[in-house]
């Protein structure tokens, strides 16, 4: 059972365009939704995260939109740049107390290519 479904698998965007990556989750016990950016040969890096009591969070060119009723959240990268080319992972995390405290389930990743 795949608890976090991420789409698309790959994405090509022109420089200056908007990149949108979507995730859907099943388990309503999740209470924290981070996004990670991974460059080739490097470990993932925490990019931005949101809690379900907020519908949107923006940090610079990166915005998370969250729809609790639909159990969906998405990452928007505004004014995409070639340096944004990387693999992006969404994740959903369990509460910090109880069974499997803080356990994160990752989506399968989206490879973003931003063309100059």
């Amino acid at each position, binding site marked *: 059972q795949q608890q976090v479904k991420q789409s698309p698998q790959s994405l090509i965007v022109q420089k200056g365009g908007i990149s949108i990556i979507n995730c859907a989750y099943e388990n309503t016990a999740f209470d924290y939704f981070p996004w990670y950016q991974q460059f080739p040969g490097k470990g993932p890096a925490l990019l931005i995260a949101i809690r379900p009591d907020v519908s949107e969070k923006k940090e610079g060119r990166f915005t998370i939109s969250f729809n609790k009723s639909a159990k969906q959240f998405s990452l928007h990268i505004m004014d995409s740049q070639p340096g944004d080319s990387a693999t992006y992972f969404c994740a959903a995390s369990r509460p910090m107390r109880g069974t499997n405290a803080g356990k994160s389930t*990752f989506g399968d990743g989206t490879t973003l290519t931003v063309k100059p």
Partner: protein
Amino acid sequence: DTAVSQTPKYLVTQMGNDKSIKCEQNLGHDTMYWYKQDSKKFLKIMFSYNNKELIINETVPNRFSPKSPDKAHLNLHINSLELGDSAVYFCASSQRYRPPAFFGQGTRLTVV
């Protein structure tokens, strides 16, 4: 100073061997993780420790044994290596029970 450091970065070994990967974090975090990333880049949690206590133990073969001598270190020992163990293994850390905030650079394990 590297926040989360893993050694070695590359590990090539024969089937049946035993190997260890070491991880250290200098962030003062309480929680540390091991993740496995396969050739398709799927990230799967293996273990997590909080202040030396095992918190998460996914369905991982018994050949994999984590050890946390103190909260700044989490090592991974693998016995009787198999071809299917070939992957990149990432260590990560975070504040108490939070999802991983910092990842190491990874250890690329190749079993031949």
